[in-house]
């Protein structure tokens, strides 16, 4: 095992909005300048803290979307307290605070050789996209399969990029509100995932209900629970 430095305690640091990129009608990617940002692993997240003038503050966690640098993709939540501010109010040059990168478990390392299954529910695609991007940066040959559940094609984040996947990445969409109302099911995972005998590393991210459903399906298909890593959004 490579010698790694003990990282030191995390504290809040200033991040300045540098650029904005629209992803869908309701999601935007925000790129931040963060002085002395250490590199991060795909799958990690940051905690964001916003403070109002009277000292009131609140925090949320967002996954890093990028392989390098700090990019967060924020999905606007109706009546949300934080996402409408990040998506529509915060301007280039203005600051937020963030803490991270956080998390060494829900990560993919290019040195991992097992085939990878990524299952995304809605904005759960974000940390999985960081893994896909990191794979492309290092020109990895590890086979990846992505199953991405979204309401309609218009809700697909990173649609253009996923239309031109790097070699060895297969992408399958499950649309839940396009023509008929449906949910991701056993057939989707069985057909478009890896057989359990391939012993893939599985990463499932999305709302809690979605993650529970998919994790149960994977176990029912014979995947080892310890090879299934989940990140529930709550």
């Amino acid at each position, binding site marked *: 095992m490579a010698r790694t430095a003990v990282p030191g305690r995390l504290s*809040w640091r200033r991040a300045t909005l540098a650029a904005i990129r629209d992803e869908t009608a309701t999601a935007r990617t925000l790129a931040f300048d963060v002085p002395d940002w250490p590199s991060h692993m795909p799958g990690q997240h940051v905690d964001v803290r916003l*403070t*109002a003038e*009277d*000292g009131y503050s609140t925090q949320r966690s967002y996954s890093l979307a990028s392989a390098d640098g700090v990019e967060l993709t924020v999905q606007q939540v109706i009546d949300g307290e934080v996402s409408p*501010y990040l998506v529509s109010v915060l301007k280039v040059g203005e*600051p*937020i605070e963030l803490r991270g990168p956080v998390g060494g478990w829900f990560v993919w390392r290019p040195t991992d050789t097992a085939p990878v299954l990524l299952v995304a529910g809605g904005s759960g695609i974000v940390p999985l996209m960081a893994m896909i991007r990191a794979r492309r940066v290092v020109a990895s040959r590890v086979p990846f399969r992505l199953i991405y559940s979204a309401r309609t094609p218009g809700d697909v984040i990173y649609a253009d990029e996923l239309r031109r996947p790097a070699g060895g990445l297969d992408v399958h969409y499950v649309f839940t509100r396009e023509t008929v109302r449906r949910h991701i099911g056993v057939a989707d995972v069985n057909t478009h995932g890896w057989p359990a005998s391939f012993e893939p590393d599985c990463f499932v991210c999305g709302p809690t209900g979605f993650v529970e459903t998919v994790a149960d399906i994977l176990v029912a298909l014979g995947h080892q629970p310890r090879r299934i890593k989940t990140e529930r959004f709550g």
Partner: protein
Amino acid sequence: MAPIGSQGSSSFCSVRGVGIVSPGFHGRPRGDQAGRLPPGQYLTEDFPVLSAGPTPRVPLDEWEFVIATEAGQDYRWRWSDLMAVASQTPTVDIHCVTKWTKLDTTWRGVSLDTMLEGVETAADYAFAISYGGYTTNMPLQDLVDGQAWIVYEFDGEPLAPEHGGPARLLVPHLYFWKSAKWVRGIRLTLADEPGFWETAGYHDYGDPWLEQRYQGD
């Protein structure tokens, strides 16, 4: 020390721990509502569901509420006993330590004065215990004189499980973590015994008007 975000601090002062202001961020609307909001609270119209664990499911035919005195005497109530006793319909404001306040909430339940009638005790404190393992503590005198109820209806409907149903404790003059959901009993104790959140840094008493959120406040 005034906790961060307390009402009344109009100027931005460099208190240790205060963060960098993000321009244009306001958060949930915070206002005084003519003196009905304790310091540091904001008004909510919905009813947030907070929990330290999974929601217990308690069938009514198994439900039991026990008042246990310091002398080892138990006073047991089954659901039918609770339904047989005169109930009240208090309308109260509730204040959560996570800073939301909900005004004019309406409940139906049995007053603790009724339930403690005939209970002989020299105890000064109460330790509430819930299905699922939650606990909280308060002085016994804060449960009497019309200050507390075992409630089983909220807003005219049976109390939903995620809000503490079938029955919860309601002690609205203290922070709402003291109003134990899924309550199944009260132990009367001679000494104050800290409960679930009190052993993790929250205040033993919890008066929202004195902003007693944490130990040492």
